[in-house]
């Protein structure tokens, strides 16, 4: 994120003349972390693309409610998390499958996904992560893959640091147990 001065672009967002260009710059800056965060939750590229588009469009239409009290990235991550959870819930409601059915369908889709380049071990690891409840999966991905600090996660998820640490600890234990059972 070199050369990105958040305060400068925030000021430009408040100027009608520069607003669209400033938002474009923000999309360029944050699209990749936001995309990968969503993708690790929904797994499929097309779904991740839809959720990311909704995320940025919601941010665009809610720009006036953003008062700069948090970092732009925190605000965008918060919208992305909400949109991802909404998407996963709607998928479950639409298909009215059981959790196990959804997991096995997601696993099959992942195996056939042309945009999944992981080896067998990585596929097994993803299957283990899929077993976690959505919120725990979010916490695990943010800590393990995105390497976010607990304090940042607290701001995004609105959950205390203590609860996040406990959630991550339980997630790791569950993943280890699953992987051991698969050997």
């Amino acid at each position, binding site marked *: 994120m070199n050369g990105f001065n958040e305060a400068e672009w925030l000021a430009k967002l408040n100027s009608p003349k520069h607003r*669209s260009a400033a938002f*474009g710059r923000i999309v360029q800056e944050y*699209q990749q972390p936001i995309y990968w965060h969503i993708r690790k939750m929904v797994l499929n590229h097309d779904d991740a693309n839809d959720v990311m588009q909704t995320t940025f469009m919601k941010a665009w239409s809610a*720009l006036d409610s953003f008062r700069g009290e948090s970092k732009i990235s925190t605000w965008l991550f918060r919208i992305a998390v909400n949109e991802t959870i909404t998407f996963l819930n709607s998928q479950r409601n639409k298909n009215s499958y059981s959790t196990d059915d959804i997991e096995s369908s997601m696993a099959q889709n992942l195996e056939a996904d042309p945009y*999944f380049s992981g080896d067998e071990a990585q596929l097994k690891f993803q299957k283990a992560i899929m077993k976690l409840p959505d919120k725990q999966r979010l916490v695990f991905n943010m800590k393990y893959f995105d390497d976010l600090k607990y304090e940042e996660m607290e701001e995004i998820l609105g959950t205390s640091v203590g609860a996040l640490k406990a959630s991550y600890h339980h997630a790791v234990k569950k993943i280890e147990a699953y992987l051991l059972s698969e050997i």
Partner: protein
Amino acid sequence: MNSNFDKRNPFTVPDGYFEDFAAKMASMTQTSMPSLPWYKKTKSWVAIAATLSGVLIGAKLLMPVEMASKTVAQQHSVEESYILNQMDEASLANYLCSTDAEGQTSNK
């Protein structure tokens, strides 16, 4: 955590995906401009001046009414106590009796 499970990203995207996405978002935001609230459209000093003018005009309109009603009430109270102080008890009793008698006559 098992060292075999490193943090390498096993997911990929179509070629040029992020460039295309940024361009798509740029065209979408250009066709749907969110409306800025008035206080963001105007310069801050204009907004401050408008707010101050509003406060001053409001104060000018409301103050005389409130002050006038307070003055009249205070004046009535001063007059009443002055008159009561001037009358002795007998005069006050006579006055009250005559008012009462007048009231009864008119009722008949």
